[in-house]
């Protein structure tokens, strides 16, 4: 449902069905709502069959990259020679995104059940749930849910009486956006600075503690029990546009819109309908100026592009952006795009782990240029400098944080150039030239 609003008839609540329903938080309540049936079924299934089912469903990573989940699992060694690990990525920090928080707050057992099924499929005895440090409430709720799952024999050395060991622990982050990047998250669990690592080796070969590891986002894992219960073809049937994008997606809508919240729709849903119908459109007297559909790391769309965009992996690429994490940031005609783009650049500069030169220097440099422009010291050549810089910041570093900084800056300069030029036109140097 469009939590915190009443569900909209055009939503398809699968993951969000119990958002706002406090009864779903407890083990008892979850079992009453059909919980842990999928785990019971999965524990009696052949591991390979579980992986095939998830592959067949078309489920793709909901954290941002959109990598097919079943395919990722299939990279894990079939013969277990060393410990295997599962990491649940609950470091939700992508500006504009707040869906995993809602999954953990209302349906912690959905995430735990998804983790347990996945852990079984990839032969992981231990799962670490990495929750960002600021999520004090979700941490407390998941802690309580884990305790209940242990008390009821769902987890532990003899999970659901099957003799399988499925242990699950929370690892609390401590304030670092970069720890949402999969290898940085593993560094952080290992008690290191959250520095991303060069790939390959990929986590399935050498991940956490150097062992084969799978890492999935909360929303991805929470979808797994539904696929096991209802089957791959049921899940695949949720598709409005491209058959490569299946299932439902939680879209976190925020910014300058009448009804911000989490809306769950079928893949391929039009962004226009999400904004104007489900979210009630713009505030009184305002019109849409821009929208970032996939969290702040993807290119900004202008109004025309937003109104034509279909919300699935391919549809967003066709519109020149990405579905990312599904964090939909809305800007109306009152937004100062130069200032907001500076805030985004500032975010990446603040969150850079500082390993790679292009990122450490580039994100800070972009922020300085934008601040200078806002302070009235901008020059026309700064716009070219921003675009030139961004080329050197894209595809050249260990992780994509640097690219993520360039995306909103480049799209912003290209699509809202008049706003940048207006700042430069009012600048001190322009005033001198006019004299």
């Amino acid at each position, binding site marked *: 449902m469009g939590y*915190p609003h009443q569900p909209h008839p055009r939503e398809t609540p699968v993951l969000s069905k119990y958002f706002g329903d406090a009864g779903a938080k407890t083990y008892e309540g979850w079992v009453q709502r059909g919980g842990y049936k999928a785990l019971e079924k999965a524990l009696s299934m052949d591991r390979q069959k579980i992986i095939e089912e998830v592959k067949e469903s078309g489920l793709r990573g909901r954290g941002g990259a959109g990598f097919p989940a079943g395919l990722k699992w299939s990279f894990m060694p079939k013969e277990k020679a060393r*410990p295997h690990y599962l990491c649940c990525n609950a470091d*939700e*920090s*992508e*500006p*504009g*995104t*707040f869906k*995993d*928080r809602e999954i953990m707050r209302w349906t912690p057992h959905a995430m735990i059940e998804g983790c347990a099924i996945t852990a079984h499929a990839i032969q992981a005895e*231990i799962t670490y749930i990495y929750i*960002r*440090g*600021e*999520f*004090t*409430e979700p941490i407390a709720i998941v802690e309580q849910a884990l305790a209940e799952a242990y008390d009821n024999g769902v987890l532990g050395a003899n999970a659901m009486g099957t003799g399988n060991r499925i*242990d699950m*622990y929370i*690892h*609390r*982050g*401590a*304030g*670092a*956006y970069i720890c949402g990047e999969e290898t940085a998250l593993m560094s*952080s*669990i*290992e*008690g*290191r*600075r*959250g520095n991303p690592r060069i790939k390959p080796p990929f986590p399935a070969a050498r991940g956490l*503690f150097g062992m084969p590891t799978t890492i999935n986002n909360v929303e991805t894992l929470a979808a797994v029990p539904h696929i096991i219960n209802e089957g791959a073809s049921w899940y695949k049937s949720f598709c409005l546009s491209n058959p490569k994008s299946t299932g439902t997606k939680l879209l*976190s*809508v*925020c*910014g*300058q819109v009448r009804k*911000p*919240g*989490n809306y769950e729709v079928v893949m391929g849903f039009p962004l226009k309908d999400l904004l104007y119908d489900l979210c009630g459109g713009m505030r009184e007297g305002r019109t849409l100026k821009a929208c970032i559909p996939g969290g*702040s790391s993807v290119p900004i769309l202008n109004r025309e592009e937003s109104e034509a965009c279909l919300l699935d992996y391919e549809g967003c690429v066709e519109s020149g952006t990405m579905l990312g994490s599904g*964090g939909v*940031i809305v*800007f109306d005609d009152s*937004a100062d795009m130069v*200032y*907001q783009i500076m*805030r*985004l650049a500032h*975010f990446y500069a*603040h*969150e850079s*782990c500082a390993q790679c030169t292009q990122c450490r220097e580039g994100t800070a440099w972009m922020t300085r240029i934008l601040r200078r422009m806002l302070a009235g010291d901008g020059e026309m050549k700064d716009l070219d400098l921003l675009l030139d810089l961004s080329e050197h910041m894209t595809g050249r570093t260990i992780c994509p944080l640097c690219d993520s900084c360039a995306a909103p800056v480049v799209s912003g300069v290209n699509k809202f150039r008049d706003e940048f030029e207006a700042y430069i036109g009012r600048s001190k140097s322009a005033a001198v030239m006019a004299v």
Partner: protein
Amino acid sequence: MQQATEYEPVFTGGQREKLDRIIERYPNKQAALLPALWMVQYARGWISQDAMTEVADVLDLTAAYVEGVVTFYTMFHEHPVGRHFVQICTTSPCNVCGAEDVVAAFLKHTGCGELGATSPDGKFTVIETECLGACGFATPVLIDDDFIESVTPEKVAGLLEKYR
């Protein structure tokens, strides 16, 4: 050299037992570093050089290594802060909804004056923080461990009453 005040260790008795149970979750002691640092911060309010040395000793690390990790994570305090630590999200989605006005209201009503400063009565430290992950509930504010949604400048004075 004699220390001015004796450092009192955090990891004794129950706290030590608690940490030992956490260490069991991981294949090595180093992985318990973030949990150990959180325990220190909850016990002392911040993480001093002496505390870093203690953590290093307990986990078979070096103090320099521990410091390297402490400085990476923004939530760990390397210096004492006010009794209540206020973090206000000012990243774009909240920013366009007026987050900077919320910051101004907190600075005014706490008496902190400027970001990162502690109020003269020692009760509050206010900082801007990057995305708190609750963008649909602009502006989210974290006061100690209390996560508060949809804060507006008008609500600030009333909110602070609880912490005075």
